[in-house]
């Protein structure tokens, strides 16, 4: 009972504390924290349009977080969601741009291509690790840069919009857009796909043998080896799936939100995804909730910098503090620590 309530209370305390520190900073720079937070809150949840915008961001963020979580459950650290997103977005765009056929079919193929593209980019990391022992933290970071420049080249060269000098492809015809599911808003079917992906993740982890095996590898390589579970195979599989979900995020971002491929479109989503995975404890339900929180902070943060004089860096700072405080678990670690000390002094 106590445990259950503190599980909810803990993150809330941490979030509130982060906002408190944030409001001090806002006061420091001579602005009004109250009205700033009001703008932020209604920017995220103020209307059905704003809520939809938040959920659209949640979709991409959560999928990116799922990418991190998938690798993490296998004991791997995937910093490469950004690059995998780029490759997924590129693959999906190439399908839409060059594949003839009915819109519905093309979109499905594009989503598949996005997943596959990201998965192969992720698998590359797995192969380098298994074959050469190359540390995945480094290869993923390096491949992020490579993917970013690859996209930049693609949208400034071979698949650039011929009628524009901007670094982007043509706008896709609307038959190739993902459907909007809430009239009058930009919430699209990708949101449902994201939820399906989370469900898949949950079932895979806890209801299937491979998922169980992968978690054993994640917890203890040697134990897995004793149990006859191949560490190498699982490494490859985990990186394939991790890359795949990031790739899917990229594909959804182009098919559902941007409707074109453009330079720099995945920037920051990678690291924000890590934050989602971490705040959500790599658990499907947790990641859904943290995806909403960070999505809200993103759209709310946009509103703050659009409509107030508070610079966006303050919102970035608050977001970072939320992460740190949730990590520290302010309530149980600090408050209970204090209690313990008090207890100790009484006894002592």
């Amino acid at each position, binding site marked *: 009972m106590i445990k259950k309530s503190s599980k909810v209370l803990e993150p809330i305390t941490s979030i*509130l504390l982060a906002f408190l520190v944030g409001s001090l900073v806002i006061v420091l720079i001579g602005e*009004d924290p109250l009205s*700033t937070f*009001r703008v932020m*809150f209604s920017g995220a949840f103020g209307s059905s349009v704003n809520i939809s915008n938040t959920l659209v961001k949640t979709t991409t963020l959560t999928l990116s977080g799922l990418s991190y979580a998938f690798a993490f459950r296998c004991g791997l650290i995937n910093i490469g969601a950004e690059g995998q997103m780029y490759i997924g977005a590129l693959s999906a765009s190439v399908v839409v741009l060059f594949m003839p056929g009915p819109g519905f079919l093309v979109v499905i193929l594009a989503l598949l291509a996005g997943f596959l593209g990201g998965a192969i980019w992720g698998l590359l990391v797995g192969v380098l690790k298994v074959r050469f022992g190359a540390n995945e933290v480094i290869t993923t970071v390096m491949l992020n840069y490579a993917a970013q420049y690859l996209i*930049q080249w693609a949208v400034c060269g071979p698949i650039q919009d011929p009628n524009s000098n*901007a670094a982007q492809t043509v706008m896709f015809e609307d038959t190739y857009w993902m459907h909007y599911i809430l009239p009058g808003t930009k919430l699209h079917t990708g949101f449902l796909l994201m939820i399906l992906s989370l469900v898949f993740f949950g079932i895979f982890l806890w209801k299937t043998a491979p998922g169980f095996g992968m978690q054993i590898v994640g917890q203890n390589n040697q134990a897995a080896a004793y149990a006859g579970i191949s560490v190498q195979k699982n490494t490859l599989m985990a990186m394939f799936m991790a890359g795949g979900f990031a790739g899917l995020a990229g594909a959804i971002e182009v098919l559902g939100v941007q409707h074109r491929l453009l330079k*720099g479109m995945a920037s920051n989503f990678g690291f924000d995804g890590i934050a989602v995975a971490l705040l959500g404890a790599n658990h499907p339900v947790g990641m859904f909730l943290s995806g909403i929180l960070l999505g809200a902070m993103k759209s709310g943060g946009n*509103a703050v910098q*659009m409509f107030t004089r508070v610079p966006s860096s303050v919102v970035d700072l608050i977001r970072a503090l939320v992460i740190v405080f949730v990590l520290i678990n302010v309530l149980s670690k600090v408050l209970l620590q204090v209690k313990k000390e008090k207890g100790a002094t009484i006894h002592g």
Partner: protein
Amino acid sequence: MKKVFALALSLMMVVSLLAGCGGSGGSSNPPASGGGDAQQPGDAQTSSGDTDYSNVKIGLMLSGSANDGGWSQMAADAANAAAEKYPGATVNYSESIPATDFESTMRGYADAGYTIIVSHGAEFLDAAKLVSQEYPDITFICTSAQSGQEPNLTGIDFATFQLGFLNGVACAMATETKKIGAVGSNEIDSIIAWADGVRAGAQYVDPECEVITVYTGSYDDALKAKQAVDALQQQGVDIVTQNADACGVGAVQECDALGLMNVGAVSDQTLLGESCFISVIQDAQLGIEVAVEQAIEGTVEPGFVSMGASAGVITLTDYAGKYADLLTDEEKTTLQNLWQQSYDGVDLETLVK
């Protein structure tokens, strides 16, 4: 005990803050409350007698940071300066907007009742063309654009080709190796136009001059510009010109260090180092200020507008630094005359075939 008390107190504060949000946040949409909150004290309702411009709301969209000391800051300063002349008018800006948020930010301002939306840079042009159609009553301005759109989108070009051309002429007259280095940030529209201008200007002076262009891929990492200059020197370049935002600082400093000559672009870069002997200024700030004022007055022309020397946007600085006397008087006159020609409306592009 103290700790607990302090924590409890701070929690209460936060809760009360949030309660405040919930109370009023629900009833009003963000734009209305946000725009109002952001007004400068004394701005609104204090203008007695004068026309009240409190219905004028300017939203400015930047792809860089508003204090970059260059491209983005110019626009922020310009919009603020323009609005200050009209009591009640408000300005709010969004900075470092990622490409994914171009459209949603633009729509956000439009839905919030902003009357003038200025997007600063060619990268916004496509979004502006799209969104401006949906909001015919709002005035859209997109800077550094090579086109505009009737009836409510003004695309302003700050004569980037002219800028590059004058840079190229100055470089070509100074170089001895006949190799000129041009450092750009990214291969985007405006930088390409500038590099084309540098090449045209150099060839105008001396067809044998070669212009080598290097991109840093960054707007803020000045170390990259330094590395670029160093690489250019290895190719026999003895003079460099740069158009790379905050990154450009590094180029001038590296020219100082390596003993190369330098010609500045956009801002007065003769202030950045001894090697920069002249700078061709592209005063986008002036251009934007004028455009915003026209938009407030309702006199801004939709479509494509070019603002160059004749609009006071392109100017030459005085000669400075250790190469101040490098060019002969005759050469200095040539440069001045070219500027004069463009001031008089001659398209410099027509001077080279």
